[in-house]
Protein backbone atom coordinates (compact mmCIF):
# COMPACT_ATOMS: atom_id res chain seq x y z
CA UNK A 1 0.00 0.00 0.00
CA UNK A 2 2.64 2.45 1.12
CA UNK A 3 4.95 1.48 -1.72
CA UNK A 4 2.11 1.85 -4.19
CA UNK A 5 1.54 5.39 -2.91
CA UNK A 6 5.25 6.11 -3.11
CA UNK A 7 5.40 4.79 -6.65
CA UNK A 8 2.44 6.97 -7.56
CA UNK A 9 4.12 10.01 -6.07
CA UNK A 10 7.37 9.22 -7.89
CA UNK A 11 5.40 8.93 -11.12
CA UNK A 12 3.92 12.38 -10.60
CA UNK A 13 7.39 13.72 -9.82
CA UNK A 14 8.86 12.40 -13.07
CA UNK A 15 5.83 13.66 -14.99
CA UNK A 16 6.31 17.19 -13.67
CA UNK A 17 10.01 16.98 -14.38
CA UNK A 18 9.72 15.52 -17.87
CA UNK A 19 9.53 18.72 -19.99
CA UNK A 20 12.43 20.49 -18.31
CA UNK A 21 14.50 17.31 -18.22
CA UNK A 22 14.02 16.93 -21.96
CA UNK A 23 15.00 20.59 -22.48
CA UNK A 24 18.10 20.31 -20.33
CA UNK A 25 19.27 17.06 -21.89
CA UNK A 26 18.57 18.18 -25.46
CA UNK A 27 19.72 21.78 -25.32
CA UNK A 28 22.36 21.90 -22.57
CA UNK A 29 23.83 18.44 -21.93
CA UNK A 30 23.79 17.12 -25.49
CA UNK A 31 25.44 20.32 -26.85
CA UNK A 32 28.34 19.85 -24.45
CA UNK A 33 28.91 16.37 -25.86
CA UNK A 34 28.50 17.69 -29.40
CA UNK A 35 30.96 20.54 -28.88
CA UNK A 36 33.58 18.05 -27.71
CA UNK A 37 32.88 15.87 -30.75
CA UNK A 38 33.04 18.93 -33.02
CA UNK A 39 36.40 19.94 -31.58
CA UNK A 40 37.84 16.66 -32.90
CA UNK A 41 36.32 17.00 -36.36
CA UNK A 42 36.67 19.23 -39.35
CA UNK A 43 33.25 20.33 -40.52
CA UNK A 44 31.78 23.19 -42.55
CA UNK A 45 28.17 21.87 -42.52
CA UNK A 46 28.32 21.29 -46.29
CA UNK A 47 30.72 18.40 -46.78
CA UNK A 48 30.62 15.45 -44.33
CA UNK A 49 32.46 15.91 -41.04
CA UNK A 50 35.96 14.44 -40.97
CA UNK A 51 37.72 13.16 -37.84
CA UNK A 52 41.00 15.03 -37.42
CA UNK A 53 42.04 14.17 -33.87
CA UNK A 54 43.77 17.05 -32.14
CA UNK A 55 44.54 18.98 -35.34
CA UNK A 56 42.00 21.67 -34.46
CA UNK A 57 43.70 22.24 -31.12
CA UNK A 58 47.12 22.47 -32.74
CA UNK A 59 45.80 24.88 -35.32
CA UNK A 60 43.95 27.09 -32.84
CA UNK A 61 46.92 27.42 -30.50
CA UNK A 62 49.06 28.52 -33.44
CA UNK A 63 46.38 30.86 -34.77
CA UNK A 64 47.59 34.45 -34.44
CA UNK A 65 44.09 35.89 -34.64
CA UNK A 66 42.94 33.66 -31.79
CA UNK A 67 45.98 34.38 -29.62
CA UNK A 68 45.47 38.08 -30.23
CA UNK A 69 41.82 37.74 -29.22
CA UNK A 70 42.91 36.22 -25.90
CA UNK A 71 45.08 39.27 -25.26
CA UNK A 72 42.36 41.69 -26.37
CA UNK A 73 39.84 40.00 -24.08
CA UNK A 74 42.23 40.15 -21.12
CA UNK A 75 42.88 43.84 -21.77
CA UNK A 76 39.13 44.48 -22.10
CA UNK A 77 38.47 42.78 -18.76
CA UNK A 78 41.32 44.68 -17.12
CA UNK A 79 39.93 47.98 -18.43
CA UNK A 80 36.33 47.27 -17.48
CA UNK A 81 36.40 45.50 -14.13
CA UNK A 82 38.53 47.85 -11.96
CA UNK A 83 36.88 51.01 -13.27
CA UNK A 84 33.36 49.63 -13.07
CA UNK A 85 33.92 48.27 -9.56
CA UNK A 86 35.53 51.46 -8.24
CA UNK A 87 32.88 53.71 -9.80
CA UNK A 88 30.08 51.48 -8.50
CA UNK A 89 31.54 51.51 -5.00
CA UNK A 90 32.03 55.28 -5.13
CA UNK A 91 28.47 55.91 -6.37
CA UNK A 92 27.09 53.55 -3.73
CA UNK A 93 29.02 55.36 -1.00
CA UNK A 94 27.62 58.71 -2.12
CA UNK A 95 24.07 57.39 -2.51
CA UNK A 96 24.27 55.70 0.90
CA UNK A 97 24.65 59.08 2.56
CA UNK A 98 20.88 59.12 2.23
CA UNK A 99 20.49 62.60 0.83
CA UNK A 100 17.04 63.36 -0.61
CA UNK A 101 16.75 62.03 -4.16
CA UNK A 102 19.18 59.15 -3.65
CA UNK A 103 16.52 56.49 -4.21
CA UNK A 104 15.51 58.16 -7.46
CA UNK A 105 19.09 58.43 -8.70
CA UNK A 106 19.73 54.79 -7.90
CA UNK A 107 16.87 53.85 -10.23
CA UNK A 108 18.11 56.14 -13.00
CA UNK A 109 21.62 54.66 -12.88
CA UNK A 110 20.25 51.16 -13.59
CA UNK A 111 18.44 52.20 -16.79
CA UNK A 112 21.25 51.38 -19.25
CA UNK A 113 21.52 47.94 -17.75
CA UNK A 114 17.91 47.02 -18.61
CA UNK A 115 18.26 47.94 -22.31
CA UNK A 116 19.37 45.61 -25.08
CA UNK A 117 23.20 45.72 -25.19
CA UNK A 118 22.92 45.53 -28.98
CA UNK A 119 20.73 48.66 -29.15
CA UNK A 120 23.02 50.51 -26.74
CA UNK A 121 25.97 49.55 -28.90
CA UNK A 122 24.28 51.03 -31.95
CA UNK A 123 23.42 54.24 -30.04
CA UNK A 124 27.04 54.61 -28.93
CA UNK A 125 28.25 53.89 -32.43
CA UNK A 126 26.42 57.07 -33.45
CA UNK A 127 27.79 58.97 -30.43
CA UNK A 128 31.32 57.97 -31.46
CA UNK A 129 30.71 58.74 -35.15
CA UNK A 130 33.46 61.01 -36.54
CA UNK A 131 30.97 63.29 -38.30
CA UNK A 132 27.53 64.01 -36.88
CA UNK A 133 28.34 62.10 -33.69
CA UNK A 134 27.52 63.58 -30.28
CA UNK A 135 30.92 63.09 -28.64
CA UNK A 136 32.86 65.03 -31.25
CA UNK A 137 30.15 67.72 -31.15
CA UNK A 138 30.69 68.08 -27.38
CA UNK A 139 34.48 68.04 -27.61
CA UNK A 140 34.66 70.07 -30.81
CA UNK A 141 36.90 67.34 -32.21
CA UNK A 142 36.77 65.11 -35.25
CA UNK A 143 38.33 61.98 -33.79
CA UNK A 144 37.55 58.64 -35.41
CA UNK A 145 37.12 56.87 -32.08
CA UNK A 146 36.14 53.45 -33.34
CA UNK A 147 38.44 53.18 -36.33
CA UNK A 148 41.60 54.05 -34.40
CA UNK A 149 43.38 50.86 -33.30
CA UNK A 150 44.51 52.54 -30.06
CA UNK A 151 41.23 54.23 -29.12
CA UNK A 152 38.75 51.56 -30.20
CA UNK A 153 39.16 49.15 -27.28
CA UNK A 154 39.02 51.84 -24.56
CA UNK A 155 35.93 53.28 -26.29
CA UNK A 156 34.25 49.88 -26.32
CA UNK A 157 35.25 49.30 -22.70
CA UNK A 158 33.82 52.71 -21.73
CA UNK A 159 30.43 51.77 -23.17
CA UNK A 160 30.51 48.50 -21.28
CA UNK A 161 31.37 50.31 -18.04
CA UNK A 162 28.68 52.92 -18.66
CA UNK A 163 26.01 50.27 -19.05
CA UNK A 164 26.98 48.29 -15.94
CA UNK A 165 27.98 50.80 -13.25
CA UNK A 166 24.39 51.24 -12.06
CA UNK A 167 23.97 47.50 -11.65
CA UNK A 168 27.18 47.22 -9.64
CA UNK A 169 26.12 50.22 -7.55
CA UNK A 170 22.93 48.41 -6.50
CA UNK A 171 24.89 45.57 -4.96
CA UNK A 172 27.33 47.81 -3.13
CA UNK A 173 24.40 49.83 -1.74
CA UNK A 174 22.84 46.63 -0.42
CA UNK A 175 26.20 45.67 1.07
CA UNK A 176 26.71 49.07 2.70
CA UNK A 177 23.19 49.05 4.11
CA UNK A 178 24.02 45.77 5.85
CA UNK A 179 26.97 47.22 7.78
CA UNK A 180 25.75 47.29 11.40
CA UNK A 181 25.32 50.76 12.86
CA UNK A 182 26.96 49.86 16.15
CA UNK A 183 30.22 49.13 14.34
CA UNK A 184 30.18 52.55 12.73
CA UNK A 185 29.36 54.13 16.10
CA UNK A 186 32.19 52.20 17.71
CA UNK A 187 34.61 53.35 15.04
CA UNK A 188 33.51 56.95 15.52
CA UNK A 189 33.93 56.74 19.28
CA UNK A 190 37.38 55.30 18.75
CA UNK A 191 38.20 58.42 16.75
CA UNK A 192 38.20 56.99 13.23
CA UNK A 193 37.46 59.55 10.54
CA UNK A 194 35.24 58.85 7.54
CA UNK A 195 38.22 57.81 5.41
CA UNK A 196 39.48 55.33 8.00
CA UNK A 197 35.99 54.01 8.62
CA UNK A 198 35.53 53.34 4.93
CA UNK A 199 38.80 51.46 4.43
CA UNK A 200 38.97 49.63 7.72
CA UNK A 201 35.38 48.93 8.67
CA UNK A 202 33.12 49.13 5.64
CA UNK A 203 35.38 47.73 2.93
CA UNK A 204 36.32 44.54 4.83
CA UNK A 205 32.62 43.95 5.51
CA UNK A 206 31.86 44.36 1.81
CA UNK A 207 34.00 41.35 0.96
CA UNK A 208 31.07 39.06 0.02
CA UNK A 209 29.57 41.80 -2.17
CA UNK A 210 32.95 42.41 -3.74
CA UNK A 211 33.28 38.70 -4.46
CA UNK A 212 29.87 38.57 -6.11
CA UNK A 213 30.41 41.72 -8.18
CA UNK A 214 33.88 40.63 -9.34
CA UNK A 215 32.96 37.06 -10.19
CA UNK A 216 29.82 37.93 -12.16
CA UNK A 217 31.52 40.95 -13.76
CA UNK A 218 34.59 39.00 -14.88
CA UNK A 219 32.53 36.08 -16.18
CA UNK A 220 30.26 38.31 -18.24
CA UNK A 221 33.11 40.54 -19.50
CA UNK A 222 35.02 37.50 -20.76
CA UNK A 223 31.96 36.63 -22.85
CA UNK A 224 31.06 40.16 -24.00
CA UNK A 225 29.65 40.09 -27.51
CA UNK A 226 26.56 42.20 -28.31
CA UNK A 227 27.90 45.70 -27.62
CA UNK A 228 31.28 44.98 -29.19
CA UNK A 229 29.67 43.46 -32.27
CA UNK A 230 27.49 46.57 -32.67
CA UNK A 231 30.29 49.08 -32.11
CA UNK A 232 33.08 47.46 -34.11
CA UNK A 233 31.97 44.74 -36.51
CA UNK A 234 34.60 42.32 -37.85
CA UNK A 235 36.94 42.70 -34.91
CA UNK A 236 37.50 46.44 -35.15
CA UNK A 237 40.50 48.25 -36.62
CA UNK A 238 43.38 45.77 -37.01
CA UNK A 239 41.52 43.32 -34.79
CA UNK A 240 41.97 45.64 -31.82
CA UNK A 241 38.51 44.85 -30.43
CA UNK A 242 38.36 41.23 -31.57
CA UNK A 243 37.56 39.56 -28.23
CA UNK A 244 37.18 35.80 -27.87
CA UNK A 245 33.41 35.87 -28.37
CA UNK A 246 33.61 37.82 -31.64
CA UNK A 247 36.49 35.60 -32.79
CA UNK A 248 34.45 32.47 -32.13
CA UNK A 249 31.51 34.03 -33.97
CA UNK A 250 33.65 34.82 -37.01
CA UNK A 251 35.32 31.40 -37.03
CA UNK A 252 32.03 29.51 -36.65
CA UNK A 253 29.52 31.57 -38.61
CA UNK A 254 31.53 33.53 -41.15
CA UNK A 255 34.22 31.05 -42.20
CA UNK A 256 32.28 27.96 -40.96
CA UNK A 257 35.23 26.25 -39.31
CA UNK A 258 32.92 24.70 -36.75
CA UNK A 259 35.61 22.38 -35.36
CA UNK A 260 38.14 25.13 -34.71
CA UNK A 261 35.45 27.44 -33.32
CA UNK A 262 34.45 24.66 -30.92
CA UNK A 263 38.03 24.43 -29.69
CA UNK A 264 37.99 28.18 -29.04
CA UNK A 265 34.71 27.85 -27.15
CA UNK A 266 36.21 25.10 -25.01
CA UNK A 267 39.27 27.26 -24.31
CA UNK A 268 37.01 30.11 -23.20
CA UNK A 269 35.10 27.70 -20.97
CA UNK A 270 38.35 26.50 -19.41
CA UNK A 271 39.51 30.09 -18.84
CA UNK A 272 36.21 30.95 -17.13
CA UNK A 273 36.45 27.93 -14.86
CA UNK A 274 40.04 28.83 -13.92
CA UNK A 275 39.17 32.48 -13.25
CA UNK A 276 36.23 31.49 -11.07
CA UNK A 277 38.35 29.03 -9.10
CA UNK A 278 41.11 31.61 -8.67
CA UNK A 279 38.71 34.22 -7.37
CA UNK A 280 37.08 31.64 -5.13
CA UNK A 281 40.50 30.72 -3.74
CA UNK A 282 41.58 34.34 -3.22
CA UNK A 283 38.44 35.31 -1.35
CA UNK A 284 38.45 32.15 0.76
CA UNK A 285 42.03 32.64 1.81
CA UNK A 286 41.53 36.16 3.08
CA UNK A 287 39.97 36.63 6.49
CA UNK A 288 36.23 36.59 6.56
CA UNK A 289 34.22 38.02 9.38
CA UNK A 290 31.68 35.81 11.04
CA UNK A 291 28.53 37.13 12.59
CA UNK A 292 28.28 35.61 16.03
Amino acid at each position, binding site marked *: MASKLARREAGIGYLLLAPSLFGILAFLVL*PILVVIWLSLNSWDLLSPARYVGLDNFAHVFADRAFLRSLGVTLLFVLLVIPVQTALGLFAATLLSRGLPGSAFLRVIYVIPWICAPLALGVVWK*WIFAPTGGALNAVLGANTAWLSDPVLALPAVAAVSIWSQVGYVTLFFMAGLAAVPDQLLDAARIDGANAWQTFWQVKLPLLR*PTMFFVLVTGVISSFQAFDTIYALTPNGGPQGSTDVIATRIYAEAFQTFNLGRASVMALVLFAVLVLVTLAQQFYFRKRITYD*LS
Partner: protein
Amino acid sequence: MTFPEPSGPGLPEPGGLVPVSTGPGAAGPGPVAPPPAVGSAPAPGTTSGSTTTAARTPSSGRSARLLLNVLTYAILAGGLVLTLAPFVLSVMTAFKSPGQFASQPALTVPAPATIENFLQLFSGDRNFWAPIVVTAQVVLVAVVGQLGFSVLAAYAFARIQFPLRDALFWVYLATMMVPQVVTIIPLYTLFSQLGLRNTFWALVLPFVFGSPYAIFLLREYFRSIPEDLISAARLDGAGTLRILFSIVLPLSRPILATLTIITVVSHWNNFLWPLIITSGRTWQTVTVATAGLQSQYNGNWTLVMAATTIAMAPLLVLFAIFQRNIISSIAITGFK
Protein backbone atom coordinates in the same frame (compact mmCIF):
# COMPACT_ATOMS: atom_id res chain seq x y z
CA MET B 1 21.77 35.98 -21.57
CA THR B 2 18.96 33.65 -22.42
CA PHE B 3 19.36 31.28 -19.61
CA PRO B 4 20.28 33.88 -17.07
CA GLU B 5 23.68 33.48 -15.55
CA PRO B 6 23.98 31.85 -12.17
CA SER B 7 23.54 34.28 -9.37
CA GLY B 8 26.88 33.34 -7.92
CA PRO B 9 27.25 33.25 -4.20
CA GLY B 10 24.29 35.57 -3.74
CA LEU B 11 23.94 38.68 -1.70
CA PRO B 12 26.14 39.20 1.28
CA GLU B 13 24.86 38.07 4.59
CA PRO B 14 23.99 41.14 6.58
CA GLY B 15 26.90 42.29 8.62
CA GLY B 16 29.43 40.19 10.34
CA LEU B 17 31.16 41.17 13.50
CA VAL B 18 34.42 42.81 12.79
CA PRO B 19 37.35 43.10 15.11
CA VAL B 20 37.33 46.85 15.23
CA SER B 21 40.74 48.25 14.74
CA THR B 22 40.60 51.69 13.30
CA GLY B 23 44.23 52.06 12.54
CA PRO B 24 46.95 54.00 14.24
CA GLY B 25 44.53 56.48 15.76
CA ALA B 26 42.53 53.82 17.50
CA ALA B 27 44.50 53.44 20.68
CA GLY B 28 44.86 57.05 21.67
CA PRO B 29 43.56 60.35 20.53
CA GLY B 30 43.81 60.88 16.81
CA PRO B 31 46.19 63.28 15.19
CA VAL B 32 45.31 66.69 16.47
CA ALA B 33 44.14 68.97 13.73
CA PRO B 34 45.21 72.57 13.84
CA PRO B 35 42.34 74.80 14.78
CA PRO B 36 40.73 75.93 11.57
CA ALA B 37 40.73 79.54 10.58
CA VAL B 38 37.47 81.25 11.27
CA GLY B 39 34.92 80.54 8.59
CA SER B 40 37.02 78.00 6.71
CA ALA B 41 35.63 74.51 6.64
CA PRO B 42 37.75 71.47 7.34
CA ALA B 43 38.22 69.22 4.37
CA PRO B 44 35.17 67.07 3.69
CA GLY B 45 35.29 63.69 5.26
CA THR B 46 37.62 64.60 8.05
CA THR B 47 35.21 66.40 10.35
CA SER B 48 33.58 63.43 11.98
CA GLY B 49 36.86 61.86 12.91
CA SER B 50 38.57 64.93 14.25
CA THR B 51 39.00 64.68 17.96
CA THR B 52 39.70 68.31 18.61
CA THR B 53 36.78 70.15 20.05
CA ALA B 54 37.88 73.23 18.14
CA ALA B 55 36.93 71.62 14.84
CA ARG B 56 33.52 70.78 16.14
CA THR B 57 32.13 74.24 16.54
CA PRO B 58 28.57 74.02 15.27
CA SER B 59 28.97 76.52 12.46
CA SER B 60 32.08 75.02 10.88
CA GLY B 61 30.62 71.51 11.24
CA ARG B 62 27.49 72.63 9.50
CA SER B 63 29.27 74.39 6.67
CA ALA B 64 31.53 71.36 6.18
CA ARG B 65 28.47 69.18 5.97
CA LEU B 66 26.90 71.60 3.53
CA LEU B 67 30.03 71.57 1.37
CA LEU B 68 30.10 67.78 1.45
CA ASN B 69 26.44 67.62 0.46
CA VAL B 70 26.97 70.05 -2.40
CA LEU B 71 29.93 68.00 -3.63
CA THR B 72 27.92 64.78 -3.36
CA TYR B 73 25.06 66.23 -5.34
CA ALA B 74 27.42 67.65 -7.96
CA ILE B 75 29.03 64.25 -8.54
CA LEU B 76 25.71 62.39 -8.50
CA ALA B 77 24.20 64.90 -10.94
CA GLY B 78 27.18 64.38 -13.23
CA GLY B 79 26.40 60.66 -13.12
CA LEU B 80 22.76 61.41 -13.91
CA VAL B 81 23.70 63.44 -16.98
CA LEU B 82 26.19 60.83 -18.21
CA THR B 83 23.64 58.06 -17.73
CA LEU B 84 20.75 59.76 -19.48
CA ALA B 85 22.51 61.80 -22.18
CA PRO B 86 22.88 58.94 -24.70
CA PHE B 87 19.17 58.15 -24.42
CA VAL B 88 18.05 61.77 -24.71
CA LEU B 89 20.41 62.52 -27.59
CA SER B 90 19.51 59.39 -29.56
CA VAL B 91 15.78 60.06 -29.18
CA MET B 92 16.33 63.68 -30.24
CA THR B 93 18.13 62.45 -33.33
CA ALA B 94 15.31 60.02 -34.09
CA PHE B 95 12.95 63.01 -34.30
CA LYS B 96 15.14 65.00 -36.71
CA SER B 97 14.91 64.98 -40.47
CA PRO B 98 18.10 63.93 -42.29
CA GLY B 99 18.38 67.55 -43.43
CA GLN B 100 18.23 68.88 -39.86
CA PHE B 101 20.71 66.23 -38.77
CA ALA B 102 23.19 67.30 -41.43
CA SER B 103 22.85 71.03 -40.84
CA GLN B 104 22.49 71.26 -37.06
CA PRO B 105 24.94 70.27 -34.33
CA ALA B 106 24.21 66.91 -32.70
CA LEU B 107 23.16 68.50 -29.42
CA THR B 108 20.36 70.73 -30.68
CA VAL B 109 16.72 69.96 -30.01
CA PRO B 110 14.88 69.02 -33.22
CA ALA B 111 12.86 72.03 -34.40
CA PRO B 112 10.41 71.19 -35.76
CA ALA B 113 10.33 67.56 -34.54
CA THR B 114 9.38 65.10 -37.23
CA ILE B 115 8.15 61.51 -37.13
CA GLU B 116 9.37 60.98 -40.69
CA ASN B 117 12.00 58.42 -39.57
CA PHE B 118 9.44 56.31 -37.74
CA LEU B 119 7.08 56.41 -40.72
CA GLN B 120 9.93 55.31 -42.97
CA LEU B 121 10.85 52.54 -40.57
CA PHE B 122 7.39 51.04 -40.69
CA SER B 123 6.76 51.52 -44.39
CA GLY B 124 7.88 49.66 -47.48
CA ASP B 125 10.45 46.91 -47.37
CA ARG B 126 11.89 47.98 -44.02
CA ASN B 127 8.62 46.99 -42.27
CA PHE B 128 9.78 47.16 -38.67
CA TRP B 129 6.43 45.80 -37.45
CA ALA B 130 7.44 42.27 -38.42
CA PRO B 131 10.40 42.02 -36.02
CA ILE B 132 8.33 43.58 -33.22
CA VAL B 133 5.61 40.95 -33.72
CA VAL B 134 8.16 38.11 -33.91
CA THR B 135 9.94 39.28 -30.75
CA ALA B 136 6.65 39.73 -28.88
CA GLN B 137 5.68 36.15 -29.82
CA VAL B 138 9.05 34.81 -28.69
CA VAL B 139 8.69 36.66 -25.37
CA LEU B 140 5.14 35.36 -24.89
CA VAL B 141 6.05 31.74 -25.63
CA ALA B 142 9.13 32.03 -23.43
CA VAL B 143 7.19 33.47 -20.48
CA VAL B 144 4.41 30.87 -20.68
CA GLY B 145 6.55 27.84 -21.53
CA GLN B 146 9.77 28.58 -19.69
CA LEU B 147 7.99 29.71 -16.52
CA GLY B 148 5.28 27.06 -16.67
CA PHE B 149 7.64 24.11 -17.10
CA SER B 150 10.07 25.61 -14.59
CA VAL B 151 7.29 25.80 -12.00
CA LEU B 152 6.41 22.12 -12.55
CA ALA B 153 10.02 21.01 -12.24
CA ALA B 154 10.71 23.21 -9.23
CA TYR B 155 7.67 21.82 -7.44
CA ALA B 156 8.81 18.28 -8.12
CA PHE B 157 12.27 19.06 -6.74
CA ALA B 158 10.89 20.92 -3.73
CA ARG B 159 7.98 18.78 -2.59
CA ILE B 160 7.86 15.35 -4.21
CA GLN B 161 9.87 12.27 -3.31
CA PHE B 162 11.23 10.24 -6.18
CA PRO B 163 14.37 8.22 -6.86
CA LEU B 164 17.42 10.15 -8.16
CA ARG B 165 15.83 13.47 -7.22
CA ASP B 166 18.97 14.99 -5.70
CA ALA B 167 21.25 13.64 -8.43
CA LEU B 168 19.04 15.17 -11.11
CA PHE B 169 18.95 18.47 -9.27
CA TRP B 170 22.75 18.52 -9.30
CA VAL B 171 22.71 17.98 -13.05
CA TYR B 172 20.38 20.98 -13.38
CA LEU B 173 22.66 23.11 -11.17
CA ALA B 174 25.74 22.07 -13.11
CA THR B 175 24.23 23.18 -16.43
CA MET B 176 23.91 26.73 -15.04
CA MET B 177 27.69 26.99 -15.10
CA VAL B 178 27.94 26.40 -18.85
CA PRO B 179 28.32 29.68 -20.76
CA GLN B 180 26.12 30.30 -23.78
CA VAL B 181 29.10 30.61 -26.09
CA VAL B 182 29.91 26.92 -25.50
CA THR B 183 26.47 25.61 -26.41
CA ILE B 184 25.72 27.95 -29.29
CA ILE B 185 27.81 26.17 -31.96
CA PRO B 186 26.45 22.67 -31.24
CA LEU B 187 22.91 24.07 -31.01
CA TYR B 188 23.39 25.64 -34.41
CA THR B 189 24.52 22.35 -35.94
CA LEU B 190 21.68 20.52 -34.18
CA PHE B 191 19.00 22.86 -35.54
CA SER B 192 20.59 22.83 -38.98
CA GLN B 193 20.55 19.03 -39.07
CA LEU B 194 16.91 19.02 -37.99
CA GLY B 195 16.06 21.47 -40.78
CA LEU B 196 14.81 23.98 -38.22
CA ARG B 197 17.13 26.84 -39.13
CA ASN B 198 15.28 30.10 -39.75
CA THR B 199 12.01 28.98 -38.18
CA PHE B 200 10.01 30.28 -35.24
CA TRP B 201 10.70 26.96 -33.48
CA ALA B 202 14.41 27.59 -33.61
CA LEU B 203 13.91 30.88 -31.79
CA VAL B 204 12.00 29.39 -28.87
CA LEU B 205 12.76 25.65 -28.58
CA PRO B 206 16.07 25.92 -26.69
CA PHE B 207 14.39 27.97 -23.97
CA VAL B 208 10.77 26.91 -23.81
CA PHE B 209 11.23 23.76 -21.71
CA GLY B 210 12.37 25.65 -18.66
CA SER B 211 15.45 27.32 -17.29
CA PRO B 212 17.66 25.70 -14.65
CA TYR B 213 18.13 29.09 -13.07
CA ALA B 214 14.38 29.73 -12.72
CA ILE B 215 13.94 26.20 -11.40
CA PHE B 216 16.63 26.81 -8.81
CA LEU B 217 15.04 30.06 -7.57
CA LEU B 218 11.51 28.63 -7.58
CA ARG B 219 12.60 25.51 -5.71
CA GLU B 220 14.12 27.65 -2.95
CA TYR B 221 10.91 29.62 -2.73
CA PHE B 222 8.61 26.57 -2.72
CA ARG B 223 10.65 24.99 0.05
CA SER B 224 10.03 28.01 2.24
CA ILE B 225 6.25 27.49 2.13
CA PRO B 226 5.15 25.82 5.40
CA GLU B 227 4.72 22.06 5.07
CA ASP B 228 1.60 22.23 7.27
CA LEU B 229 -0.36 24.11 4.62
CA ILE B 230 0.38 21.45 2.06
CA SER B 231 -0.28 18.43 4.26
CA ALA B 232 -3.55 19.99 5.43
CA ALA B 233 -4.67 20.35 1.83
CA ARG B 234 -3.61 16.79 1.11
CA LEU B 235 -5.68 15.52 4.04
CA ASP B 236 -8.63 17.38 2.54
CA GLY B 237 -8.12 15.28 -0.56
CA ALA B 238 -6.41 17.80 -2.84
CA GLY B 239 -4.17 16.28 -5.52
CA THR B 240 -0.67 17.42 -6.45
CA LEU B 241 -1.72 19.79 -9.23
CA ARG B 242 -4.51 21.25 -7.14
CA ILE B 243 -2.11 21.93 -4.27
CA LEU B 244 0.33 23.50 -6.70
CA PHE B 245 -2.19 25.77 -8.36
CA SER B 246 -4.42 26.76 -5.46
CA ILE B 247 -1.94 26.91 -2.58
CA VAL B 248 1.68 27.10 -3.71
CA LEU B 249 1.40 29.42 -6.71
CA PRO B 250 -0.79 32.08 -5.06
CA LEU B 251 1.77 32.24 -2.24
CA SER B 252 4.62 32.58 -4.75
CA ARG B 253 3.51 35.74 -6.53
CA PRO B 254 6.64 37.78 -5.73
CA ILE B 255 9.08 35.25 -7.18
CA LEU B 256 6.80 34.65 -10.18
CA ALA B 257 6.70 38.38 -10.86
CA THR B 258 10.48 38.56 -10.59
CA LEU B 259 10.98 35.66 -12.99
CA THR B 260 8.45 37.08 -15.45
CA ILE B 261 10.38 40.34 -15.58
CA ILE B 262 13.70 38.50 -16.02
CA THR B 263 12.25 36.37 -18.81
CA VAL B 264 10.73 39.31 -20.68
CA VAL B 265 13.90 41.40 -20.44
CA SER B 266 16.30 38.64 -21.43
CA HIS B 267 14.25 37.47 -24.43
CA TRP B 268 13.42 40.95 -25.71
CA ASN B 269 17.13 41.80 -25.57
CA ASN B 270 18.47 38.45 -26.79
CA PHE B 271 20.73 38.86 -29.80
CA LEU B 272 23.37 36.20 -30.48
CA TRP B 273 21.07 33.18 -30.88
CA PRO B 274 18.50 34.92 -33.16
CA LEU B 275 21.39 36.43 -35.14
CA ILE B 276 22.84 33.01 -35.83
CA ILE B 277 19.77 30.88 -36.31
CA THR B 278 17.70 33.21 -38.50
CA SER B 279 18.52 34.65 -41.90
CA GLY B 280 16.57 37.04 -44.04
CA ARG B 281 13.70 39.11 -42.73
CA THR B 282 10.96 36.63 -41.91
CA TRP B 283 12.07 35.66 -38.40
CA GLN B 284 14.24 38.63 -37.54
CA THR B 285 13.89 39.80 -33.96
CA VAL B 286 14.05 43.49 -33.02
CA THR B 287 17.73 43.36 -32.03
CA VAL B 288 18.72 41.53 -35.22
CA ALA B 289 16.66 43.93 -37.34
CA THR B 290 18.29 46.92 -35.60
CA ALA B 291 21.76 45.55 -36.24
CA GLY B 292 20.84 44.84 -39.87
CA LEU B 293 19.43 48.32 -40.35
CA GLN B 294 22.57 49.85 -38.89
CA SER B 295 24.87 48.07 -41.32
CA GLN B 296 22.54 48.57 -44.29
CA TYR B 297 21.93 52.28 -43.70
CA ASN B 298 25.34 53.11 -42.27
CA GLY B 299 25.45 56.87 -41.76
CA ASN B 300 21.68 57.35 -41.98
CA TRP B 301 21.67 57.97 -38.25
CA THR B 302 18.21 59.52 -37.93
CA LEU B 303 16.62 56.32 -39.23
CA VAL B 304 18.93 54.10 -37.17
CA MET B 305 18.21 56.06 -33.99
CA ALA B 306 14.48 55.64 -34.64
CA ALA B 307 15.11 51.88 -34.68
CA THR B 308 17.13 51.90 -31.43
CA THR B 309 14.42 54.04 -29.82
CA ILE B 310 11.86 51.39 -30.70
CA ALA B 311 14.16 48.57 -29.59
CA MET B 312 14.56 50.18 -26.15
CA ALA B 313 11.18 51.86 -25.58
CA PRO B 314 9.12 48.83 -24.44
CA LEU B 315 11.58 47.89 -21.71
CA LEU B 316 11.97 51.53 -20.63
CA VAL B 317 8.18 51.75 -20.23
CA LEU B 318 8.20 48.43 -18.37
CA PHE B 319 11.00 49.74 -16.19
CA ALA B 320 9.13 52.98 -15.44
CA ILE B 321 6.07 51.03 -14.30
CA PHE B 322 7.79 48.22 -12.40
CA GLN B 323 11.05 49.89 -11.34
CA ARG B 324 10.53 48.99 -7.68
CA ASN B 325 10.04 45.31 -8.50
CA ILE B 326 12.87 45.29 -11.00
CA ILE B 327 15.35 46.83 -8.60
CA SER B 328 14.46 44.33 -5.90
CA SER B 329 14.51 41.50 -8.47
CA ILE B 330 18.08 42.36 -9.33
CA ALA B 331 18.95 42.40 -5.65
CA ILE B 332 17.30 39.01 -5.07
CA THR B 333 18.60 37.17 -8.08
CA GLY B 334 21.51 39.13 -9.50
CA PHE B 335 19.84 38.46 -12.80
CA LYS B 336 21.66 38.98 -15.99
